């Protein structure tokens, strides 16, 4: 029993925090500022706790399992949530339902944890829903903004649709194999057409969560309409967690059909990169822009996933770690500007460097990292994804991926250009950052630079297997 508590420690911690927040809410409540500090503190504790007492194990008849790699993945997500609690202080302070916000956020996080740990399609489905439905509610948290409810509506409907698809796929898998367990499934899979069909349904649901073309269409609208914090959560934490479980699903569960999914991943990866980039190219709204760019990033993750090897897992996990830093930094800057000045257009960023060099450098670092420019960690991340993907010696694929890096560089540079090069009579005025935001940005910046240069990070991830 004790052992079980330790094994499920991260989930339990989150649950405890959720209930703590619930009691605070039910009690007399707290001011936003103190609550925020409390939450930040708790998240930090939670993050730190993630490094200790990690026990691998299998619980509930294999429905739940964990190991060093999964623990590390959860730590990445914890880190992301901690950073979110730091970076979006501007928005949090104005929010009226901060407690509920974090309750929902943490429920979703809990769902993700369970999802990563799930060893069974039922658990997977349930935790996926747990990770989705609260987020849909969160997307509506800019209660007085039309766009926010529109985003939430689109999100909940799309994900309901995708749940339907997923369930249909699961039901077919169940019918064809008689089992839902990740352990037992591989033995039953033989790649006959029905299984392929079932796999396509399942795959599509994953693809939906990962915003892979052509299942990505909800992404941009939802990102644009949601509060920045939710967008960041969706684009970083949610994507990260789904890629982790996707790895397990492909490498472990559907291993017998790896030829099939390799091709599928390849096609969709190419489509995703190209589409994401092409759409990102012409965005003016920075959130939308980041949405499409993150779609393209997901295409890259698929490149890594396609390798079907140890390197694939490590490079994806590594990339997600870097992605947490980079994308959160970018969203952090966006959020500061959007909640202070209400400007979200790239054009309005012109001349920002004259007034806010710190923000600009953070943004630049983040974007360079996303674009894969050394010495930022994104360079290593992308390179390892490509390296992993290249192990199949499919050069066309890799060349397309590499060329897409250029395309993506083009639009990242657009933002850089606006901030650094273009002149503006009335640039955004100087913004004094909250300490926590500054702290978050510094952490991100350090992460962006050091995660790559300190090569043992990758080796450590590799060793977790």
């Amino acid at each position: 029993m004790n052992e079980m508590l330790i094994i499920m420690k991260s989930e339990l911690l989150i649950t405890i925090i959720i209930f703590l927040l619930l009691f605070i809410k039910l009690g007399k409540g707290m001011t936003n500022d103190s609550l925020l500090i409390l939450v930040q503190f708790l998240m930090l504790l939670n993050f730190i706790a993630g490094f200790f007492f990690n026990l691998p194990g299998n619980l509930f008849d294999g429905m739940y399992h964990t190991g060093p790699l999964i623990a590390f993945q959860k730590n990445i997500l914890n880190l992301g949530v901690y950073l979110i609690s730091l970076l979006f202080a501007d928005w949090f302070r104005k929010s009226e339902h901060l407690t509920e916000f974090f309750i929902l956020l943490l429920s979703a996080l809990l769902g993700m944890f369970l999802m990563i740990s799930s060893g069974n399609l039922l658990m997977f489905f349930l935790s996926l829903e747990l990770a989705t439905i609260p987020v849909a509610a969160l997307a509506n948290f800019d209660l007085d903004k039309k766009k926010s409810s529109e985003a939430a509506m689109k999100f909940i409907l799309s994900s309901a649709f995708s749940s339907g698809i997923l369930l249909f796929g699961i039901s077919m898998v169940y019918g064809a194999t008689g089992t839902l367990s990740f352990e037992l499934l591989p033995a039953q899979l033989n790649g006959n057409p029905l299984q392929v069909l079932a796999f396509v349904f399942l795959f599509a649901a994953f693809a939906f969560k990962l915003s892979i073309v052509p299942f990505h269409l909800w992404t941009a609208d939802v990102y644009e309409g949601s509060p920045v914090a939710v967008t960041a959560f969706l684009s970083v934490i949610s994507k990260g967690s789904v890629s982790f479980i996707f790895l397990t699903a492909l490498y472990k569960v559907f291993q017998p059909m790896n030829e099939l999914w390799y091709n599928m991943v390849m096609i969709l990866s190419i489509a995703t990169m190209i589409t994401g980039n092409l759409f990102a190219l012409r965005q003016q709204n920075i959130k939308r822009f980041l949405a499409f760019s993150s779609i393209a990033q997901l295409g890259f993750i698929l490149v890594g996933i396609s390798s079907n090897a140890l390197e694939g897992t490590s490079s994806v996990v590594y990339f997600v770690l870097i992605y947490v830093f980079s994308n959160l930094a970018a969203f952090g800057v966006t959020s500061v500007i959007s909640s202070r000045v209400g400007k979200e257009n790239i054009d309005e960023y012109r001349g920002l460097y004259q007034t806010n060099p710190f923000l600009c450098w953070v943004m630049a670092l983040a974007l360079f990292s996303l674009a894969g420019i050394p010495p930022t960690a994104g360079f290593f991340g992308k390179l390892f994804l490509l390296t992993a993907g290249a192990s199949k010696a499919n050069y066309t694929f890799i060349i397309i991926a590499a060329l897409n890096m250029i395309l993506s560089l083009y639009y990242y540079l657009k933002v850089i250009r606006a901030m650094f090069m273009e002149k503006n009579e009335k640039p955004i005025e100087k913004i004094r950052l909250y300490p926590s935001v500054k702290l978050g940005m510094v952490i991100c910046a350090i992460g962006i630079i050091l995660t790559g240069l300190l090569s043992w990070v990758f080796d450590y991830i590799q060793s977790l297997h």
Partner: protein
Amino acid sequence: MNLLLLILIPLFTAIAVLLMRNPQHIKWVALTGATTQFITALWLLLAYQNERAAGNHFQMLFEQRYNLFTSWHISFHLGVDGISTAMILLTAFVVIAGVLVSWKMTKMTKEFYFLLILLSLGAYGFFISLDLFILFFFLEIAVIPKYLLIGIWGSGNKEYSANKLALMLMGGSALVLVGLLGLYFNSPERTFDLIRLSEIGISTETQKICFPLLFIGFGVFTALFPFHTWVPDGHSSAPTAGSMFLAGISMKLGGYGCLRVATYLMPAGAKEYANIIIVLSSIAILYGAFTTLMQKDLKYMNAYSSVSHCGFVLLGISMLTKTSMTGAVMQMISHGLMTALFFAVIGMIYERTHTRQINEMSGLLKVMPFISTIFFIVGFCSLGLPGLSGFVAEMTIFMGSWEHPDAFHRIATIVACLSIVVTAVYILRAIGKTAMGPLKEGYANLTDASWNEKLAAVILVAGIIAIGCAPFWLNNLVGPDTQLIMQKILLTQ
């Protein structure tokens, strides 16, 4: 000699620059860093030659290796041979001159010097790394500083140029990346180590796939026709020091890569594709020269002439003879010094006359004899006057190319030879219009070079003359290593 110094000095300089506030101090810090680096480079040359003289016959000297990303078998492997020593020397020359030339930079001084030093860091790292991954890392490090240098401090259609440059260079490096990955996965053992890869050999099929990727990829950096269009725009929009770095150092990264990575590792591939590259580089040489002829803007002119001159580098490499490869390396050094100086001079002139249009200037010799004299010298170097470095390099390439007795190579060589006439035409045209002729009205009060500009010019001229008058030391420095590359090529059937 610890090669890490070559990376650490610019790194610390860059950090120091970031920490400074007073622009005046920043300049001095940057200059100190560049000078230290310059001395280190000279020291490296001496140490290298001593070591060789003492009979050290390892292929690479001063090797160091630190494991990095062990799971990918990547290591931080450093080492130099004659070619890289020469390239480092070139970089040191250009960097110090670049820092000196931009002494009067007032706009965002800190960022400017930071980026310059970062760029040089990339170049140094590139030249000393023996691990392809690290090499690629440094190659890419050098791209974004260029973009920002052009975009923030540039002139003209700078944003367009900066974009084009960054994207095309990234495109090149993307190809390089794919090529490197191909090598990595298709060699008998997974390694990025240059020396190891050359020892274990790469199968011919792989070479046939990877060679074009790597060569074209690096070729983009070296203005391989038809991937050269970033050169004119990029160079002409960049600030003076930016152009100097761009043409003097950055384009050499590509040439070095073509030689050290593509040709050295994949001799069979090099043989397979040599003819195509010869055709392309011959076109670049002559076509670049003719295009230069039509330019009216000094910077554009020099940029296009760089296309032509870098065509020599690629021609030399793809001719696959020891002499021509030596010539290619010499041409890289020579062109690096020369074109940096050229841009420096153009910058000086522009600073005073506020125009770069050839037709709008006249008689500058009268009011700025020093600058004009340098202009003459660099022009003569460009058109291959004996006693200056350009001649030595070009002749070595010609001699090397001529070693192939068949008509194809002959024609390519002759085409290349013909370009020196065209070069003469455009150089003389530029000099004749700007430096010579009656003094234009309103120019009477222009001043000659200031101390920093003089110093920068003198340093570069010294380099040019040192090679031009005594090419043997460079030949001896580079020759054995090109010989080594040649041996590998000869060994493949």
